[in-house]
């Protein structure tokens, strides 16, 4: 991932947190708030190195906690752990398949609230948890799953648009047999 693309991803994290705070349409309809940061982290973890994962975890986590009543810093570690886990397993994930992106998005969006709640309980906080939380968890997982392929599409295209594409290196398979000049005995 290029530096420009990383900056764009960090700006997207800022925008995601702002949208989650300021726009309540979906929240009022579904009675649950979605979280787009885990899906964004899935893209970064499968497209960039650990430095980018750390940058998104710090920037996204701090921005989220700033507008939330959470203690500052509590969202950094869950985001980071998700990113590191995906980064370590990125060879096993079919990154370019939309269904794989959806499943990864669902999984990370479902794990994020669990890890954050564990962090809050460990810090002695009392988050509001009840039966409604199950529904909210389901909505978060589904919307995160749907957002992941969109992020992959968007940022992959952006990556192509913002960077020079390198010419493919020559290899043996590129030579076409039907274009080979056959030289006979007389030549």
């Amino acid at each position, binding site marked *: 991932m290029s530096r420009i693309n990383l900056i764009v991803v960090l700006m997207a994290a800022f925008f995601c*947190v702002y949208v989650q705070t300021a726009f309540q349409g979906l929240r009022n309809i579904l*009675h649950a708030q979605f979280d787009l940061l885990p899906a964004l982290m899935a893209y970064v973890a499968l497209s960039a190195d650990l430095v980018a994962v750390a940058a998104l975890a710090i920037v996204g986590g701090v921005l989220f906690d*700033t507008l*939330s009543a959470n203690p*500052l810093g509590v969202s950094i570690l869950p985001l980071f752990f998700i990113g590191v886990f995906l980064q370590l397993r990125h060879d096993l994930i079919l990154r370019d398949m939309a269904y794989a992106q959806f499943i990864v998005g669902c999984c990370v969006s479902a794990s994020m609230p669990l890890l954050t709640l564990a962090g809050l309980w460990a810090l002695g906080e009392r988050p*509001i948890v009840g039966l409604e939380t199950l529904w909210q968890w389901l909505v978060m997982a589904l919307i995160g799953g749907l957002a992941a392929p969109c992020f992959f599409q968007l940022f992959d295209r952006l990556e192509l648009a913002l960077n020079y594409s390198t010419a493919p290196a020559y290899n043996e398979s590129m030579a076409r047999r039907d274009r080979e000049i056959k030289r006979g005995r007389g030549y």
Partner: protein
Amino acid sequence: MFKKPQYLAILLTLVLAGILLSLPARRKNQLKRWIGTVFVVGFGASRAADAAADKARVAVTPRKVLGKQLADLQEENQRLRLQLKQAGVIARENDRLRAALNWKKQTRWEVSLARVIGRDPSNWRQVILIDRGARDGVTENMPIVANEGLVGRVSSVGMTRSQVVLIGDPKCKVGAMIESTGEAGVVETGKSGALGRDIVALNYIAGDSELKPGDRVLTSGLGTVFPKGIPVGTVIHARTLDYGLTKDARVKLHVNLNRLEHVWVLTN
């Protein structure tokens, strides 16, 4: 497994998270306010967009409808002015009687209108953001009300906006009383977790109380945050606990906390 910059990134993230989490609450709030200034432009843009939408709505509303609304509002204004005069007479009489009995004088509520500009981005907090801050004279723990009743209290104040913790959040406990009997209790989140967004628990009511569904619940004025007499909600279910020693109840809030657009800050 990792290269050197990657180990540094892991170390930096863990150390930064550790430092932020170990900061005292006051420092954390200061840091939040400072970082939160990056959202000023976004919230300003949202406010401008709302104002433009309101203007557009007025522009497309037929003059006939606007004229009818104006007439209705003028009529309501006249009626409220009359009620205000009557209330003034009653208040003066109340003050005289209090003075005669040597009772403490009641302070009048001074209110400031605020717009709700956001909600907590997480699902496990009942917190909203309003567009009034220290610049407008808002301080921590000021009560927040809507036309229907109590909303919550200010939990954190920035220069241009404040965070309000809503009734039903574990960080907002309210001293309350039953209007008909005057018995006091505490409104808080249910002991077993969230009861629902518009239902809260009324706990620590005396066991011999005649608490019943339909009773109105008001703030009791016991404590230092909420003044007496703000409507909170209506009892929908009551039960006896601890072999008859105490009672608790479920209270349906008067205010729909999911649809808040404007609220009042009680500034005195």
